[in-house]
């Protein structure tokens, strides 16, 4: 039966994430963006809230909460309202843990999931995007060649968050044209981590290029082993997560520019009392809400274990456009003030533009 009301449990998690975003993240996000660094203490505080580890089953040492894409979307939006870089950093281990939780063999789950149930943040990541024009997640240049008792990986990746500190990588590669994921441990021969990337936005998030040069992994390191993984589902989970985060970033920009428009006086009145500005804000509000609802619907399908490829793709495309529209307008409403780094809207514009590029960099 149709309902738009999160459960009580979800409302509790959301209000916790919201408070954290407001009290901790919003205090330091500008500094983090300028310095390119996120204090470990903030990441640890977030980790202790159990946003990722909370959905680990009891048998692997977790509290056994339900793993839900809707809950993940709600959390993603709230955190991203605080700051996108920090959100992606905080939720980065899920890039590894969630696919293993959903698609790993019993052995893989036993081996890896307990690592994410500790008090301490466990850095793990995934590598999907490749540094070339025309990148298509469904047709990767990185290859996995079966060879004896294992696979040999070759290729180039980029936008790999936290690659330097990660102990575990999930590397996406084409095996005979089909996309599979491979578990690669830190220090594996042939896994070379490049320079830290310098991006337009998400500057506080450390991302890296990475190359695989005849990197050999044992057979049992293919996610889901013989069965392999459901890459469509992984992409859908990622697109839902990113859409939720786009909603959060846009909401931040909307709120800030709305409040500014009410205070800024021109020609004797607040600029918000002019339709040119008011209608921009109205459209921003409508599109943010629409994106959120579409995100929820796609997440709801994922939670029902249904194919959500179409819904997730539609909302991601919509969210990409919405995020740039809203953040650009926020800058526009502040005018010259929006262009200077004293105000946060330029940061949100830089981050908002990123969503169309980000694929597989977050997951619910």
């Amino acid at each position, binding site marked *: 039966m149709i*309902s*738009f009301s999160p459960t009580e449990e979800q409302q509790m998690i959301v209000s916790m994430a919201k408070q954290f975003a407001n009290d901790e993240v919003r205090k330091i996000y500008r500094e983090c963006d300028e310095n390119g660094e996120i204090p470990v203490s903030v990441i640890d505080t977030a980790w202790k809230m159990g946003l990722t580890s909370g959905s680990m089953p009891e048998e692997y040492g977790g509290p056994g909460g339900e793993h839900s894409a809707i809950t993940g979307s709600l959390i993603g939006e709230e955190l991203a309202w605080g700051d996108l870089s920090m959100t992606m950093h905080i939720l980065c281990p899920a890039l590894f843990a969630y696919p293993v939780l959903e698609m790993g063999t019993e052995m893989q789950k036993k081996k890896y999931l307990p690592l994410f149930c500790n008090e301490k943040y466990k850095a793990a990541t995934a590598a999907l995007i490749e540094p070339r024009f025309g990148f298509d997640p469904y047709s990767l240049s990185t290859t996995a060649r079966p060879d004896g008792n294992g696979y040999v990986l070759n290729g180039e990746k980029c936008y790999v968050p936290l690659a330097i500190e990660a102990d575990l990588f999930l590397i996406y590669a084409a095996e005979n044209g089909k996309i599979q994921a491979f578990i690669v441990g830190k220090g594996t021969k042939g896994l070379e981590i490049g320079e830290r990337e310098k991006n337009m936005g998400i500057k506080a998030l450390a991302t890296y290029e990475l190359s695989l040069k005849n990197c050999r992994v044992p057979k049992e390191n293919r996610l889901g082993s013989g069965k392999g993984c459901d890459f469509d589902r992984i992409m859908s989970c990622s697109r839902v997560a990113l859409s939720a985060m786009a909603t959060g970033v846009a909401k931040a920009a909307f709120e800030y520019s709305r409040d500014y428009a009410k205070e800024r006086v021109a020609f004797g009145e607040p600029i918000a009392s002019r339709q040119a500005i008011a209608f921009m804000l109205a459209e921003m509000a409508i599109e943010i809400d629409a994106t959120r609802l579409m995100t*929820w619907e796609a997440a709801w399908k994922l939670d029902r274990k249904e194919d959500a490829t*179409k819904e997730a793709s539609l909302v991601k495309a919509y969210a990409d456009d919405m995020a740039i529209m809203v953040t650009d307008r926020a800058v526009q409403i502040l005018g010259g003030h929006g262009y200077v780094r004293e105000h946060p809207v330029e940061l949100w514009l830089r981050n908002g533009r990123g969503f169309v590029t980000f694929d597989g960099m977050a997951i619910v």
Partner: protein
Amino acid sequence: MIDFELTPEQQEGIKAAHEAVKELFRPVSRYYDEHEHESPQELIDQIWKKRSEGIFNMGMDITSVLRIEELCWGDAGLFLCIPGPSLGGAAVFASGTKEQLQRFLGSFNEGEPKWGAMAMTEPGCGSDTSAITATATRDGDEWVLNGEKIFVTMGKRALEDSDGFVVVWATVDKSAGRAGMKSFVVPAGTPGMRVEKLEKKLGIKASDTATIIFDNCRIPFGNILGNPEVKKADKTATKGFKGAMATFDATRPIIAAQALGVGRAALDFVKEILEKEGIKIRYSAPRQKLTALERDIIEMEANYKAAKLLTLRALWMMSQLQPNNLESSMAKAKAGLAVTKITQKAVEIMGPLGYSRKYLLEKWMRDAKINDIFEGTGQINMLIVARRILNYSRDQLK
């Protein structure tokens, strides 16, 4: 719990409505578009006979509105011809007493088919409904109405072709401003009321859009909806006006659903042709790899979905008795514009098939446009949204 699953009842309702309009509306859709002002009498009789099946029953709950989308998928003009109290009913429902509900709506399912209508717009005022000049003057046990109302949807059917009624908005005290605005139920056949003319329109031609003249039209005192008293002390009081606005909160998601029906008719048509041509839309492919056509289709589908979910949310909030003024206007603004664009794009994409009157697509484009106009234009709804998000009064944001 966030949930998008339709109940079995809703699924069946949608299916039954879909099948019914496929059989009843679509075959005559073109005919009544080309024969404006000709009554689809046979169709109305058929609908009337089927009224116990519930397919054509109106309502403001999610189930009913989902059905309404389906009926408009069939034909938005013929949808308006379905007998019932319609927008007039919504107004009675929003501010009428129990006794009035019984008196005005009680017999709608009996005897001959009847229609209800709502008369608000005047030649000199459209979106600014507070500028209404029609007057209602009390004379003993009666109200005397004077004025001219235009764009009354189904006005002729309600007043000339059936034993229906019209809800008229008029001022009882001009000096009281908005607080003086009241609504009155005028039954068909009341002396002093006449249908002056019927508009010739761009679309939804099967429905009539009437001008109604009130010339010393007398109605019983008890036909006023809501409180007859005007709070004169406070000129900014908007109580009477609020009745009209509360009605809009309820009806705007319905208009949004009507829009969605037309939009989906166009989308279905386009997708059917693409499938015949063997063209697959690669939803999950990266943007730079998509064809212009794929981008268009994805944008149309996403916008349809966005409008639909906003509509469902507004309806759901109403079902939860939560105030939904903001959300209703969001849904209406989004759906009206989205569907206008979807149908216009569909005509573009289909080229000669889109522009030709051999197919219904061009008609749907014409039909769709009204949804961005009636029950509050897109701009008025944006204004409402803007006021709500800014927490501004109408004086702070004009």
